């Protein structure tokens, strides 16, 4: 019976040791994994929260910025209208300039006619002086008048020429000034038109950018929701593993108890089973308890307890210790 008690005691020892080792190993794998997963979930929630904050902030900012761009766009429309008004002014000024030119040309022509008339008057006065000289002393007063007329004609001719020259100069200057002014106006008008186009492009870009950002946020939301769903699927599995470990623990306990009952209460086992048969029974039991433990190690443990007296095993172990 002592031998039987020691066998049972040994079975207890081995089963407890294996059960503890397996459970420790499982826990060491599963617990950090569960902690990591819970940590990942927490971090994911933080990231989601921060992302939502960022999204709301971006939307608020983009709304304000969009309003500013819209206002700027409206102001640029006014500028464009103003530019178009300037162009109209240029066109009108061109017309006016043309009118002025025509009038100056007309005045010039009139001035030339005046010069012609003055020239003829001069000729007439010269003729009158000649006639007055032929008449003699009675034509003297007429000769004076003729000279005076000639002088007036010369003055008229000179004044008319001055007026003509002055008007031509004025025309040239005003043409130069007007062309400069018109060119500058046209240039400004073009610049404003280009500014307006740039603003329209900026508006379109911002609109598209906002759509793009919204899509990114939406995709991120979908991704994080999917990740959260996947994590939630794993959680029950982890919980089940915890439950499974409990079940292993309970099974180990009940197996130990059953083995005790079997060895203590079964008279057949106590009396009719040989040592080797009992050894076989124990080996089978131990093999089911673990997949990693080598059978030889189990046998060696059995030898230590006195359950197995396999000299074959001890011979082999003799060769497996080398001291250098």
């Amino acid at each position: 019976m002592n031998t039987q008690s020691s066998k049972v005691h040994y079975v207890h020892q081995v089963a407890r040791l294996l059960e503890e080792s397996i459970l420790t190993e499982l826990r060491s794998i599963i617990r950090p994994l569960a902690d990591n997963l819970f940590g990942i979930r927490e971090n994911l929630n933080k990231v989601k929260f921060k992302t939502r904050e960022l999204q709301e902030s971006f939307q608020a900012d983009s709304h304000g910025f969009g309003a500013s761009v819209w206002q700027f766009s409206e102001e640029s429309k006014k500028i464009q209208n103003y530019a178009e008004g300037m162009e109209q002014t240029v066109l009108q000024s061109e017309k006016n300039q043309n009118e002025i030119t025509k009038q100056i040309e007309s005045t010039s022509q009139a001035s030339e006619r005046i010069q012609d008339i003055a020239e003829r008057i001069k000729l007439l006065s010269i003729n009158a002086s000649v006639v007055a000289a032929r008449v003699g002393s009675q034509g003297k007063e007429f000769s004076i008048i003729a000279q005076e007329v000639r002088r007036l004609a010369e003055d008229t001719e000179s004044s008319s020429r001055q007026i003509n020259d002055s008007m031509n100069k004025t025309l040239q200057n005003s043409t130069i000034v007007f062309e400069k002014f018109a060119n500058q106006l046209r240039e400004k008008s073009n610049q404003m038109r280009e500014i307006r186009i740039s603003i329209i492009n900026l508006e379109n870009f911002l609109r598209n950018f906002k759509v793009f950002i919204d899509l990114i946020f939406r995709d991120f939301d979908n991704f994080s929701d999917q990740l959260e769903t996947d994590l939630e699927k794993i959680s029950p599995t982890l919980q089940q593993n915890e439950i499974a470990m409990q079940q292993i623990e309970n099974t180990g306990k009940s197996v130990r108890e059953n083995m005790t009952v079997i060895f203590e209460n079964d008279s057949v086992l106590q009396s009719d089973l040989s040592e080797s048969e009992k050894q076989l029974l124990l080996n089978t039991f131990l093999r089911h308890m673990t997949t990693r433990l080598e059978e030889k190690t189990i046998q060696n443990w059995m030898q230590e307890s006195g359950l197995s007296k396999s000299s074959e095993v001890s011979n082999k172990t003799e060769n497996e210790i080398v001291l250098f």
Partner: protein
Amino acid sequence: MKTILIAEDSGIIRNMVKSSLIDTYRILEAEDGKKGLEIARSEPVDFFLLDLNMPNMNGFELLRDLRQMSQFVRTPVIMLTTEARDDFKTKGKELGATGWVVKPIEPSRLRGLIEKILRG
């Protein structure tokens, strides 16, 4: 009480060896070579039991590093491994191992071997 460091990646084997020695020795455990080296740098160790095939630094690499530490030049190191090839044993000897034990070994034999080596 002398201190033994067991470097072995299998928790089951580690527990089994530990349970056979814990009554007599203070036991430190490492699940890989790198952890074993960290412990050796901070704890006084009187005996090393090193598995060969471990992640993050195998038994040979750990042995080489231990022998380069002045406090462990003469400390006994037993390679406790399933490898039984002669070329592995030769390499272990060259790196400075005290002995080579092929698993499995009876706990009582292992205990006896350790006592014998520590007695000198």
